């Protein structure tokens, strides 16, 4: 039970306060007792002081009577006799007024009575004093005897009273000294105990709390090894144990996290190195590709450019043959010449397409705000004017503005519109649609947030199995007889879209039409 109380802070404080309370009560009782003792000693002194005062007064009156008697003895006049008797009365009065105790008072009463008789006896001798010298000497001796006894008794009582007073004073002084020494010792003891209590509080509460706070501060400052060096059974000890346990767990977790962070950093470093390596490889390949592309484009341009002159020459000479020598050839020959002319024309278209593609790739871009809807409407009007017989239902979403090169965008839109117009030629109710996908529609189709434009038709469509070849040069999904074309248009569109940082792709089904989607940065 005691151990349990002692091992709790409230219990310790209760014990400490209890002891201090007992000490203070004891201290108060002792101080009260000491004050009462000093008071009692003082009360014993006061009556003695009064008695000494009365005795002194009595002694003075005795001395005055003796002096008066001396004078009367020497001179013997009536006035001296009256003064002597008055002094006697004063002496008697001083005895009566004083609160002396017996036997002194009784003895003095007796002595004063005898003294008065002796004085009166001497005072009665008024004639021929020298002849009655014996009576005077004897009477005087008697008077002085009484006076001496009175003085002696007074002196004895004064001495005794003084002794008592001294004793009482010594007792009082002794009591005061004792009280003071006791007060000093008790105060010193109390101070010692209070200092001990302070040290005990410091050792039991302040120091452990200080150690604990230092440990907490050190831990908060980053020292994960900081621990409270407090080993106790009370609340502070338990708090320290909890703190130490908590810090151990935190240290373990932090160590684990640090290990993970180090691993992650190593992985990131490795990834970064790989990325750098990859970027270097990509850059190197890109440079190689760019160089190859430039070479290829230069080659294509050169080839196309250089091929046009001999082709024109062939075409020219073939037309001369047709115009000037066709009557000299049979029908087969003429047929062959027409075929050559037709292929030369196709060859020129191919070369022109390649040159166009090459120019679009190499041309400098001039970026500005472009109304894409207006471009589509213009291209649709041009396509419709080329074949006024056809009826196409155009659905063009208005005011779709983009930032790009207007010339290139016009070429791309024209290829897409011409393509749709061409492949809806056999549709019963042709319909071509241009617009912007809604957010929901664009979901999952391209990068989140990038607007996706589309041109949709209900024409011939295509097989998605060949979608990968759709934007390659000279690749065609239909024969020349079905739909004319040289297979460069979509490649050109793709090149323009790419130069704008966008992407183009297509969806379709044979006979169900096709939709071309594209984005622009």
């Amino acid at each position: 039970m005691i151990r349990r109380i002692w091992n709790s802070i409230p219990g310790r404080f209760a014990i400490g306060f209890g002891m201090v309370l007992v000490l203070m009560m004891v201290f108060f009782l002792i101080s009260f007792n000491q004050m009462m003792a000093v008071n009692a000693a003082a009360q014993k002194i006061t009556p003695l002081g009064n008695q000494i005062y009365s005795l002194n007064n009595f002694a003075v009156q005795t001395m005055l009577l003796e002096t008066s008697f001396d004078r009367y003895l020497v001179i013997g006049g009536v006035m001296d006799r009256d003064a002597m008797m008055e002094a006697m009365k004063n002496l008697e009065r001083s005895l009566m007024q004083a609160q002396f105790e017996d036997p002194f008072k009784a003895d003095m009463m007796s002595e004063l009575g005898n003294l008065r008789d002796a004085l009166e006896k001497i005072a009665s001798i008024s004639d021929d004093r020298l002849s009655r010298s014996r009576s005077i000497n004897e009477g005087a001796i008697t008077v002085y005897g009484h006076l001496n006894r009175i003085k002696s008794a007074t002196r004895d009582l004064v001495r005794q009273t003084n002794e008592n007073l001294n004793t009482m004073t010594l007792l009082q002084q002794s009591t005061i000294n004792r009280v003071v020494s006791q007060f000093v010792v008790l105060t010193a003891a109390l101070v010692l105990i209070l200092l001990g209590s302070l040290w005990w509080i410091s050792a039991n509460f302040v120091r452990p709390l200080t150690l604990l706070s230092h440990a907490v501060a050190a831990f908060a400052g980053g020292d994960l090894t900081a621990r409270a060096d407090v080993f106790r059974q009370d609340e502070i000890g338990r708090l320290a144990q909890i703190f130490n346990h908590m810090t151990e767990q935190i240290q373990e977790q932090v160590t684990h996290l640090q290990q993970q962070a180090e691993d992650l950093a190593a992985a990131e470093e490795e990834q970064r190195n790989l990325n750098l390596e990859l970027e270097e490889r990509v850059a190197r390949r890109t440079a190689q590709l760019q160089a190859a592309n430039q070479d290829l484009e230069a080659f294509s341009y050169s080839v196309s450019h250089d091929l046009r002159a001999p082709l024109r020459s062939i075409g020219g000479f073939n037309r001369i043959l047709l115009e000037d020598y066709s009557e000299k050839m049979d029908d087969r020959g003429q047929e062959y010449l027409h075929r050559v002319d037709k292929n030369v024309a196709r060859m020129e278209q191919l070369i022109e397409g390649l040159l166009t593609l090459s120019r679009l790739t190499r041309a400098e871009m001039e970026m500005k705000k472009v109304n894409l809807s207006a471009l589509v409407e213009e291209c649709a009007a041009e396509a419709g004017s080329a074949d006024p017989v056809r009826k196409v239902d155009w659905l063009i979403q208005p005011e779709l503005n983009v930032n790009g090169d207007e010339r290139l965008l016009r070429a791309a839109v024209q290829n897409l519109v011409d393509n749709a117009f061409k492949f809806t030629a056999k549709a019963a109710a042709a319909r071509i649609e241009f617009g912007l996908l809604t957010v929901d529609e664009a979901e999952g189709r391209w990068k989140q947030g990038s607007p996706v434009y589309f041109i949709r038709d209900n024409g011939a469509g295509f097989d998605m199995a060949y979608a990968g070849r759709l934007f390659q040069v000279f690749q065609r999904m239909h024969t020349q007889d079905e739909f004319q074309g040289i297979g460069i248009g979509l490649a050109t569109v793709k090149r323009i879209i790419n130069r704008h940082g966008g992407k183009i792709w297509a969806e379709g089904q044979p006979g169900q039409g096709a939709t071309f989607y594209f984005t622009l940065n």
Partner: protein
Amino acid sequence: MWMRVKRDGLLLLGFLILFGGFLMLIPWALQASGGTAAATPSPASIYQGKKIAWVDSYAPDYDWSQELEAGLASVLNPTGVEWQIFRLDMKRNPSEEYAVKKAAETAEKINAYAPDVIIATDDNAQQWLIVPYFATGTVPVVFASVNWDDSEYHFEPEHVTGMVEVHLVPQLMGQLDVLSQGSRVGIVAVDDITEQKNIEYYNRYFDRQLQIFWVEEKTQAEYQRLFLQAQAQTDVVLIGSNAGIGDWDEAAARAFFIQSTEKPTGSFLQWMAPYALITLAKSGQEEGSWAAETALRILQGTSVQEIPVTRNRTGRLWINLDIAEKLKVVFSPYVLKHAEVIDREAP
């Protein structure tokens, strides 16, 4: 951990001890009204183990010795100091042979007693015992009742001090001069060594004007005759010693002096008080108490050298009312207050 628990235990133990110690102070503290503090040691404790030897030149039945003893006892007895009396009894044995032998025996006894201080009274003790045996020894000596002068003993002040005994001539003559009709002073005394020495010192006061009436034949009749002669030739008569007068009749002498005295008379000798108007005699009690107090001072540590030789200053005063009646003298208040009365009865 174990050290911590041990420290906590010690802490608690120390605190309980402190607390218990405080509680143990309580009974002591509650004695506030207890006894007086013994600030100074009692006289008994000061003189514990100390011893004083008193060498009396005479015997216990001798009046002077009794006065000395009374003075010694009044001082020494209350202190608790141990003291012992060694009597030489030389009044009854005045021979030199006895003196030498008695002194040797007494010295041996004193050495056996091993006192811390020796008190020796009267000249016989100094002459026969102190000077030959103790004057230069290690035991301090206090003398008293040495007549008039101690120089003849050549005491060393480091070892010996004391009180010389003088007759109070100025004091007695102050009272007699008031009563006398003239300035002439005479003295009647038996012619012996003591009186010769006394009168020698008296004469210093009277500037050698003292008229001396020596009683040569040592008879009462001659003494009375010389008294009448002195009374006729002087204004004040001093009554000297009657020592050695074999036929001295006290009653007749008293009657003679009461009837014959016509001039103020005085005496320094107590046993002559019945025959003089005023007697101022030396006090053996004064000398005894002074010697005792001086011995105690020495025992308390005062060196002998610090205590100078002194002389007696008080005496016993007697007045003779019969002679006063004869002379029609009313004494002064001072005399009447302090005097003892010599009446018709012997003192």
